[in-house]
């Protein structure tokens, strides 16, 4: 009920964070989120030892409030020097003109060799040809599956393309009977459909800011996804209706589950020790052969407003170092974005990480418009209707296009204006 109390508290926190500049040493204000925000505190002392005269002040933000806080800080001119930024937010903050372009710094820094980064995740930080972030860790989704059930259904390997995946799901459904399913795609998550949409050859948002869900590729993705629910291969259930997803997975309620690296630790911890050999991870199957997945994760960014960019860049350089990334991986389980780090025994010998290592070579960023998260939310809502049989495929793609076009209307107006003026309009003095 006390909206303004909460807002004042948030504002106070921002103000407190910004008025702390000691004169003698350089104090870097760094914002990081969630678990990474806790762990970065363990890595920072070494950086401070290596760089006398630089003190790092880390402020932790909860993931759920980070986006609002960053925007409020931007409007209030109270940005930190450096931050961890979800890379799907990079286009938005680049549009705002809040981020410092990093191309020149990267070229001048041999310790951050572009060639050592997986191209998909690197690309997610490029907006209109400029680099705005250095990938810190990768969050992508792929298949978690039950080996034993798949074997009983007559298959000795996970699916490589949709056709094979579909065959396996049909066989599993036949095997497990009416009360169980072959896959579980939570109705209240947009990510599985988002990934299938990314696998299509056409982009979901066109360059002139229109929804492109009518494309043949997306239609195929939608049909495949919708088919799993219409044919009873996957239940129409939201995460709120599944009390404990690990228990259900263990009981064989479903065999395939599309989720991310954070679940490796959870599965290891929550499934009984005797059942550990029964589950495995596999790269995403695609429409024809192995498919791409989303290039999610977090990047390290510098803010334009910072007066301590050189010191902040040193911290980015430090956090990108392979030995620090291995420590970071050990602390969080987060997947490093650098190719050389994946060759170290810690990652190369981890059976569950192997599929992620392969998926790393096939990542694709989500459409780089600030509105994407809102469009993805609509994707979920419209799909829910389609799953319940309220919309046909034709109506679904038409509705998606309509909603996306509505959300993107302002962007189209700006693009049109930019064309008229003939100069980029993203600058803020």
């Amino acid at each position: 009920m006390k909206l303004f109390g909460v807002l004042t508290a948030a504002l106070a926190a921002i103000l407190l964070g910004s008025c702390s500049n000691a004169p003698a040493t350089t104090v870097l204000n760094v914002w990081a989120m969630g678990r990474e925000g806790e762990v970065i505190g363990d890595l920072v002392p070494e950086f401070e030892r290596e760089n006398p005269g630089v003190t790092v002040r880390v402020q932790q933000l909860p993931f759920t409030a980070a986006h609002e806080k960053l925007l409020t800080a931007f409007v209030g001119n109270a940005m930190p020097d450096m931050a961890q930024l979800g890379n799907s937010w990079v286009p938005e903050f680049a549009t705002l003109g809040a981020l410092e372009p990093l191309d020149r710094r990267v070229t001048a820094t041999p310790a951050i060799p572009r060639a050592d980064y997986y191209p998909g995740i690197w690309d997610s930080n490029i907006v209109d040809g400029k680099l705005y972030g250095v990938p810190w860790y990768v969050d992508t989704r792929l298949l978690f599956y039950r080996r034993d059930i798949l074997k009983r259904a007559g298959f000795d390997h996970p699916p490589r393309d949709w056709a094979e995946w579909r065959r396996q799901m049909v066989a599993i459904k036949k095997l497990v009977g009416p009360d169980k399913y072959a896959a579980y795609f939570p109705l209240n998550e947009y990510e599985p459909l988002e990934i299938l949409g990314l696998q299509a050859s056409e982009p979901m948002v066109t360059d002139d800011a229109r929804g492109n869900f009518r494309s043949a590729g997306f239609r195929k993705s939608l049909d495949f996804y919708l088919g799993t629910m219409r044919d009873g291969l996957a239940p129409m259930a939201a995460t709120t209706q599944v009390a404990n997803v690990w228990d259900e997975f263990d009981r064989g309620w479903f065999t395939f589950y599309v989720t991310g690296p954070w679940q490796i630790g959870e599965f290891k911890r929550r499934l009984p020790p005797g059942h550990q050999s029964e589950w495995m991870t596999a790269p995403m199957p695609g429409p024809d052969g192995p498919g791409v997945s989303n290039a999610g994760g977090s990047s390290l960014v510098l803010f334009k407003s910072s007066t301590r960019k050189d010191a902040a860049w040193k911290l980015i350089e430090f956090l990108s170092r392979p030995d620090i990334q291995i420590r970071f991986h050990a602390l969080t389980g987060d997947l490093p974005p650098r190719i050389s780090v994946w060759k170290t025994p810690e990652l190369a010998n981890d059976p569950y990480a192997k599929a992620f290592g392969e998926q790393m070579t096939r990542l694709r960023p989500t459409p780089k418009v600030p509105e994407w998260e809102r469009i993805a939310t609509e994707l979920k809502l419209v799909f829910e209707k389609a799953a319940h049989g309220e919309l046909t495929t034709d109506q679904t793609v038409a509705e998606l296009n309509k909603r996306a076009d509505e959300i993107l209307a302002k962007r189209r107006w700006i693009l049109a204006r930019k064309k008229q003026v003939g100069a980029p309009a993203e600058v803020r003095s």
Partner: protein
Amino acid sequence: MNQERAAWGFVAPALVALGLFFFLPVAAALVLSFTDFDIYAVADIGNLRFVGLDNYLHLLETPLFWKALGNTAWFVLLGVPLSIMMSLAAALLLDNKLARFKGFFRTVYFAPVVTTLVAVAVIWRYLLHTKYGLINWALGAIGIAPIDWLGDPHWSMPAIVLFAVWKNFGYNMIIILAGLQTIPEELHEAARIDGASAFQRLRHVTLPGLAPVLLVVSILTMAGYFQLFAEPYVMTQGGPVESTVSILYFMYEQGFRWWNLGFASAIAFVLFLIMFALTLVQLKVSERWTQ
């Protein structure tokens, strides 16, 4: 003349403060609600357009707005009567001549009002926990199966109502208690001599005497409950399945999550109009009731 000037001098600080911190922002928000202020406008104010009533028209076509309105109405319908009844019951207990340690109980009942909402919300999340929560444990003792309070879309709003009522009833209790003490003792005595039962005395002496107080309390409570925000923000983030998205939460998301400040301002004014209309209705109804 001199006196008049002095009077203006005295009210000036209050007028300036009100003008600067109330009327000006409200007027600015009204102007904002006719624009499409969004992150593009934050980046460059040249990207701002006046759109007239578009925000309002678009709002009426947004399903989530209607859902939020329904959720808020459900919260108000459930919460306001419950809250006032709780307050009234607690006040009657405290007003009773047989009650002892009145000061102590007054403090205890009032304590939730002065606690920090975010802190107690966290504690209530523990209380409401499906597996380990005290509430489900107590329900289990009388044979009721555990309820997934904050995870089940049907129970999430009642859980929030429970929390809000607990948090707020003490405030109204104090106002009602003051009202009770203004009812002359002679009336009760006369009713008792005439043979009125306890319930009849409540119905025909206490409640009519309290009517003006109850009217104020119900208006204030309704206005407060319509502005449901912090409870879902802290406890459920609007979920599950948007079952606890209130109008204010919807406005907050539009304004501060997506930064559609023009649209969010339009929501604020629609909420204002709704509350204004409802207060008028309440006043009309109570006029008839008190006559």
